[in-house]
């Protein structure tokens, strides 16, 4: 019988969070085994639109995003793959005095936590920052030019390559079906193929499936998937429009990739669509273009080539979970609440440091597994 190689650390989930965490741990000398039930990026990461912003309202998220942006901007050198990082900026639009007030207050908070280049732009300036933007009824916006974009598949492929080159293992098409434990400790995992892999540390980085994977270990992980749909257009000339975020009930978010000129975007469904379904709807395919053209009418002739959907992985308070669990050696890094791609690089680094240190308390108190879950992230 072939005895599977042992690892020090098993990571469940080949999305950005598992891959980034695995990279930092492998680099630090741990023998890492990354286990993914499909292919890399088969979950939410391969379905996201690649936006990266630092405009949040909690200190924890802002600091993490400052770090993530530093990682993204040096990833090409660090991972040896072009991840198409481009600081194209994010512009949050305010069409009501209440939104304007809220954004002005947020900007003050963000600046106080070190996000220096975020600023309020009036409607005219917004039109300058985003050429072609329809400024009818617009009061202005919160603009941060150092926010940006990157290409998720390249980022995860880059991390996975580095895990392998550090001697780690990446098992794709391998579903974890049970978590082995004994004496209050995690012992390893079992897979659908019947293989047992042993390790003293197991990380639940299963994104929208974090609750199910938690249950295998008897640990309650409050993560709920919610369906979000997206579409992408053909590539056209790069127009220098930052990511536009319109929080109105009939708004949406979209940006243009610098590297190939494709527009990509989505909106948050009202009411939201709970569950694991990743079906696409005709309603979205006709509604999203309306919302895009309302903001940038000149995009009318640009052709949509594909639609799809994926999951946001929500926690009750809109903040991630990065913590150990009551089962010794079993960690939870999940519940990125629709911001996991951008948070991934910094979360991965934080998680690796936390695990290396063996500390009891999580590095970011507001991301504790057993917390109150009462506060809400306003820039959801």
């Amino acid at each position: 019988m072939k005895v599977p190689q042992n690892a020090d650390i098993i990571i469940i989930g080949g999305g950005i969070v598992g891959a980034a965490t695995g990279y930092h741990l492998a680099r630090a000398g741990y023998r890492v085994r990354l286990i993914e039930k499909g292919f890399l990026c088969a979950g939410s990461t391969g379905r996201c639109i690649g936006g990266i912003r630092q405009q949040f309202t909690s200190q924890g998220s802002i600091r993490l995003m400052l770090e993530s942006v530093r990682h993204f901007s040096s990833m090409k050198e660090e991972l040896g793959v072009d991840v198409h990082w481009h600081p194209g900026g994010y512009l949050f639009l305010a069409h009501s005095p209440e939104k304007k007030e809220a954004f002005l207050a947020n900007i003050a908070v963000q600046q106080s936590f070190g996000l220096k280049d975020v600023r309020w732009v009036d409607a005219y300036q917004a039109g300058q920052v985003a050429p072609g933007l329809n400024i009818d009824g617009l009061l202005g916006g919160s603009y941060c030019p150092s926010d940006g974009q990157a290409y998720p598949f390249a980022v995860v492929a880059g991390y996975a390559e580095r895990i392998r080159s550090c001697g780690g293992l990446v098992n794709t098409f391998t579903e974890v079906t049970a978590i082995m434990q004994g004496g209050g400790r995690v012992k390893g995992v079992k897979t659908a193929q019947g293989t047992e892999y042993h390790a003293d540390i197991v990380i639940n980085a299963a994104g929208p499936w974090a609750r199910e994977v938690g249950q295998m270990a008897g640990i309650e992980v409050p993560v709920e998937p919610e369906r979000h749909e997206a579409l992408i257009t053909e590539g056209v000339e790069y127009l220098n429009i930052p990511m536009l975020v319109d929080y109105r009930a009939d708004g949406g978010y979209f940006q243009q990739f610098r590297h190939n000129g494709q527009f990509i975007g989505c909106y948050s469904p009202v009411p939201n669509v709970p569950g694991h379904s990743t079906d696409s709807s005709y309603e979205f395919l006709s509604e999203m273009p309306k919302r895009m053209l309302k903001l940038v009418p000149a995009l009318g002739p640009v052709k949509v080539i594909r639609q799809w959907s994926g999951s946001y992985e929500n926690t009750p308070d809109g903040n991630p979970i990065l913590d150990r669990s009551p089962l010794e050696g079993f960690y939870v890094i999940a519940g990125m609440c629709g911001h996991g791609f951008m948070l991934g690089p910094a979360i991965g680094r934080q998680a690796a440091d936390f695990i290396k240190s063996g500390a009891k308390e999580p590095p970011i108190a507001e991301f504790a597994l057993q917390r109150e879950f009462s506060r809400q992230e306003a820039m959801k």
Partner: protein
Amino acid sequence: MASNTDKIICRCEDITESQVLEAIEKGATTADEVKRLTRAGMGHCQGRTCRRLVNQLLARRLGQRPEDQKPVTQRSPLQPISLKTLADS
């Protein structure tokens, strides 16, 4: 490993045979993975031209028949269609 005549496999995204073979060497076993590593199939025609070629390369490398390949996910719209037309629909 790259063939001496580096054929274009995906015209829309300008992906060559050796790029596809490199993805297979890195561990891709399905057209879905090749697509995500190389972008072959993500272009304007959504793989209508390159899908068969990618499957042939995969089959040859993995010692399978092309028809045994797992098909890639097909998504709407079936043809590129403008934002304006969709918005008016």
